[in-house]
Each structure stands twice: as structure tokens, then as C-alpha cells.
């Protein structure tokens, strides 16, 4: 039985032991938390060992903004754009958190942001951006390059 009382509080604890209290309406923007609430598992503090305090605060900020009825469409757009102006480490943390907590709107935005980072980039550039090791042999790499030559002209 899901309670839609807006004054119910959900308590969360990040991996670095910071606690956050938010209204249920805010918390249930996360499908993961929503399921817990619906299943009646949200009465005690919910531990989130995969999300640190900094990132959790950001995610909750996002969720709060999205239930706030006083926020206009334009304000929300600006908020979302500014929100994703992050360094890679935070962006990665946010991606993991949004995925784990399943906050759909946020996850889509973060995925798009990551996609924008690699748009139009050559493979070497992508490797450099994400510090990925090139594990192809020279022969393999040559073969794959040929296969994808159409993309490089």
C-alpha cells in the first residue's frame, strides 16, 4: 500500500555516513526508493552504500527541484543545464547514483551529457577523455579502422 502523504519523511544515509531527510514525494522520484516505500521498507533509515554524501545531496536537490510547483519551465531548464556543469569525477558519481537510484529524468540528462563529451571525437580522443586503454593489437585496430573508415572522412 503506497502512502501519498506529502508529510511523510524518508531518511537516507550515504556511504560516508551522512544522513538526509526528505519528503516522501521527493524521494519517490527515485524508482528504487519508491519501490522501497511501496514495499514498506522505508520506515528506518535507508543505507545507500554506493552513493557518497556529495552526490546524494546533488541528486536530492534535483528531485526537490522537480517536485517544486513554484519553479517555472524556464527556471527548470536553466537549473538542469547548470546542474550538469561538473567535472568528470562528479559526473561519473552522478551517473552511477542516478542509475542505481533510477531517477529517470536525471539519468537521461547525465547520459546525454556523457554522450555529448564524445560526440564527433576520434577514438584516440575518446580514449584520452576517459583514460581508456587501447587493448587492440595493431592488426585488430587496423581491421576495425577499415571497417569504420566511412565515419572518418
Amino acid at each position, binding site marked *: 500500500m503506497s502512502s501519498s502523504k506529502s508529510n511523510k519523511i524518508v531518511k537516507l544515509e550515504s556511504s560516508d555516513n551522512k544522513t538526509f531527510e526528505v519528503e516522501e514525494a521527493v524521494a519517490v522520484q527515485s524508482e528504487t526508493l519508491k519501490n522501497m516505500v511501496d514495499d514498506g521498507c522505508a520506515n528506518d533509515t535507508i543505507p545507500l552504500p554506493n552513493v557518497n554524501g556529495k552526490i546524494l545531496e546533488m541528486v536530492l536537490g534535483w528531485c526537490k527541484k522537480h517536485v517544486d510547483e513554484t519553479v517555472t519551465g524556464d527556471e527548470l531548464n536553466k537549473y538542469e543545464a547548470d546542474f550538469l556543469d561538473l567535472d568528470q569525477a562528479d559526473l561519473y558519481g552522478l551517473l*552511477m547514483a542516478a542509475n542505481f537510484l533510477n531517477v529517470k529524468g536525471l539519468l537521461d540528462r547525465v547520459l546525454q551529457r*556523457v554522450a555529448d563529451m*564524445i560526440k564527433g571525437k576520434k577514438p584516440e580522443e575518446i580514449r584520452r577523455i576517459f*583514460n581508456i586503454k587501447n587493448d587492440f593489437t595493431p592488426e585488430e585496430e587496423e581491421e576495425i579502422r577499415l571497417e569504420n573508415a566511412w565515419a572518418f572522412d
Partner: protein
Amino acid sequence: MKRAMADDEVTEKGEDKKMKKIRVEGEEEEGEGEGGEGKGKGEGEGEGGRGSGFVNLDENLLYEVLKHVDARTLASAGCVSKLWHRTAQDERLWELICTRHLANIDCLKQQLRSVVLALGGFRRLYSLFLCHLSKPQSSGSSSSSSASSSSSSWGPFAPMIGSKPPTRWGKDEVHLSLSLLSIRYYEKMNVNNRGR
């Protein structure tokens, strides 16, 4: 957490600090990033304190990211590493790209999938034919200079398509590219038969 890791880094070689800077800024031109790679991968787990953590991006999330890129980027991504190659080869991603431009003819999309998969898949369809549709056909040289493996049969059709790429591909463009794909498929098939 990041602060704590930073202390460790200071005690390591100066190169590592530079490396972190490279990663955070994203796009340095130097090749020095290669040097500390081994370390970055090992310690980048979980907290991502050493690098940004994206080096550990798993296949599923990478797939989700690649859903949002265009065709060239997807092809480029396929050249990055073995994991990226595997993920970028996924037919569903190429189907998204091929059908993105399709006018919304639902039954067409469903029929399309089985036909295209039987004839070699969406990735091949795109790389051989559709990528040319996306380029502005301003001169014949653009179609002839592109991949030598691409069909020369596209040449005569280029003027018909016109100089501006259609923003929405209707049944005609779809049928045309499917016809070319199937011709190529059968050409290959005949070659195989002759070889036996």
C-alpha cells in the same frame, strides 16, 4: 573521499598529478596519458578517486550512453577498445540510428527489422548506404571518395536524392536503401557459391 586520495597521489610521481589534471580537463593533446594508465585502471574502482571512474564504465551503461550519439560517433566509439567495440556493434543501436530518420510508419519499422537483419544488419546498412544519405550530396566526389568497399551502385542515385539530405526518410528512401542492401547481399552470396 577525493581529498584523501589526493594525498596519496602527491606522494606518487609528479606524472600522476599531471595525469589527473589531464583526465579532469578532458582533452590534452599530449600522449603522456598513456604512461600512468595501468595505475589508473587498477585504482579507479568504486570511488573513482584516481581517475574520473569512467574507465570502469560497464557495458550496460556504455550502451545507454551510446544510444544518445550519432552514427559517426558510434562508429568512432567502436574503435576505442574491445569493450567499446563489442558494445558499439550492437544491432539495436544501429537500428535506432537507421530508424531515427524514418517517417513514423509503424508497420514499416517492424517489417524493416526482420528484413534488414536477414540481409546483414543495421550497422552494415548504415555504413554502406545510409551514411551517404546523411551527407550533403554536393558533388559526386563525396560518394566516390568514401570507403572503397561501398557500393558504386550508389553513384547513379545520388543526383536523384538531390543536394539536400531529406530530414525525414520516407518509404522511397527506405526501399531504395533496402534494395541496394539486398543486391549487395546477393552479390556476395553468388561469389560464395562460385567459390565452392
